[in-house]
């Protein structure tokens, strides 16, 4: 298609508003995107550097920021790892065998997406908190979960639990089991079948879901803020640290720390788009080959 960049160029489709109608719709879209998607990013950067480079650098390298960054990194890595292992197991168990109760299992996996992150935090307080019914056992083992790092990790795992399973289940279900059955008949064991036969087909879907899972894990606020107790330098994640700075009216500091998360989310978004393109290309070349 030539001249794809002129404003208001339409794809060859039968139904189109006239040129001015098209331009109007494009302007609405651009304005909406500028207000809601571009302006928030720009305002964070502007406010972060409002007093120049050195206060920015001071805020970003401050000890509590670094500690919060470390906890966020740890939480994200743990949540992504656990949920990947779980997601792969669940996808295999859900798509490779027939039994009653599969629907219930799928509902259970989807549950964390349906409930408010605040409720996610609440249930861990009710279970492991000082008044929780499992608390006496925790005391016996000298374990502290709520208002401690394990609570932060558990809450993050809960809210990001569905990402991998949800992405892999439909891909596996659509592929069918013929290739795997053939491999098993020829004597391959579970791990061989999984890594040599199944894994190549779900590779992109897996990477894609990992990225989404990581994005949510590093940014989770509601659930973590309920269970963390906001102990500075101990159970404060980066988003919670931003909240504390903001509430202390240290606005430019909180925007400075926010730039770390803005940068990460822009990287994540770019990676997501690149992977989508790569997967599409591979899909097309597969179709071409067959």
């Amino acid at each position, binding site marked *: 298609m030539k001249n794809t960049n002129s404003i208001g160029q339409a794809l060859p489709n039968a139904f189109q508003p006239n040129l001015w109608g098209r331009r109007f719709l494009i302007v609405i879209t651009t304005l*909406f995107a500028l207000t809601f998607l571009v302006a928030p990013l720009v305002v964070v950067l502007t406010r972060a550097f409002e007093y120049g480079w050195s206060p920015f650098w001071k805020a970003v390298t401050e000890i509590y920021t670094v500690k919060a960054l470390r906890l966020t990194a740890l939480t994200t890595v743990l949540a992504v790892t656990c949920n990947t292992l779980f997601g792969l197991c669940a996808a295999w168990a859900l798509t490779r065998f027939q039994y009653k109760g599969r629907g219930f299992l799928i509902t259970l996996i989807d549950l964390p997406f349906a409930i408010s992150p605040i409720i996610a935090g609440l249930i861990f307080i009710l279970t492991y908190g000082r008044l929780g019914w499992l608390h006496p056992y925790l005391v016996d083992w000298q374990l502290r979960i709520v208002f401690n790092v394990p609570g932060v990790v558990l809450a993050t795992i809960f809210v990001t639990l569905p990402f991998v399973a949800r992405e892999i289940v439909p891909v596996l279900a659509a592929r069918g089991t013929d290739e795997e059955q053939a491999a098993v008949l020829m004597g391959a064991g*579970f791990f061989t079948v999984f890594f040599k036969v199944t894994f190549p087909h779900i590779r992109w879907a897996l990477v894609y879901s990992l990225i989404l899972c990581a994005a949510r894990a*590093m940014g989770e606020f509601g659930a973590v803020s309920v269970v963390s107790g906001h102990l500075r330098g101990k159970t404060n994640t980066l988003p*919670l640290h931003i909240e504390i700075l903001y509430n202390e009216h240290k606005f430019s500091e909180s925007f400075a720390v926010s730039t770390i998360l803005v940068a990460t989310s822009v990287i994540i978004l770019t990676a997501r788009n690149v992977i989508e393109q790569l997967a599409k290309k591979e899909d097309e070349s597969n179709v071409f080959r067959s």
Partner: protein
Amino acid sequence: MSVSKKVLPGFGLTMGLTMSYLSFIVLIPMFSLALEAAEVGWAGFWKAITDPRIIASYKVSFGCSFIAALINAIFGTIMAWVLTRYRFLGRRIIDGLIELPFALPTAVAGIALTALTVDKGWIGKPLAELGIAVAYTRVGIVVALTFITLPFVVRSVQPVLERLSPDYEEAGLVLGASKLKIFFKIVFPEIKPAVLTGFSLAFARGLGEYGSVIFIAGNKPLKTEIAPLMIVTRLEEFLYGQATAVALVMLTASFIIMFLINRLQIRSATFCEG
């Protein structure tokens, strides 16, 4: 195919891991909610959820989420249409940015939107001159929820529009239908289930949203407190029973919405296949 159960290996291992993980992370903690509710009893439960402050927070949560979902249903459909049908400068950038609200941590979104809409902010200042306050009002809550739930409608309508064959629109045009008629009689019925699904997902997400809203809402009792904030407030007062009661009401609401979404998706799926 009961054969596959015998042929493919790994059932015990994967099923065992799946079940233990789900029990530990989801089932046992969710069970605590029921346990706590039983402890509170019916009278305490009723008293907790009919507190004026709580009722006001439900109104704010449901009202603002509904308006935000509606805004997204309208603008999201327009954006999906523009992004699939027209080619213009910046289209790929906008398309790539649509998921930003899912990637950007909600706390960052909250403080950024507040900075934009306070009466000295880039957007808040011109609006303040017109006498419209955004930050620290319900309008601010709607703005935050619109941002957070922006991708839902766009991303559910876009694939439908991409798949939509232009043949029917062409037929309508050849048969002499007006442009508006073609849109409302041919295009809209095709994308309606997707718009509704996106709307409901946005509504459900808006009900539970916390991080972005608390910065912009101002959290004035009876005016701009959202229901999730009330759960946090009750927890901070160590009134776990009351927090549970408020949570159960919100949970029921989101289950009803999820159930409706499932029905909608089943219906549109059978419609497409049949």
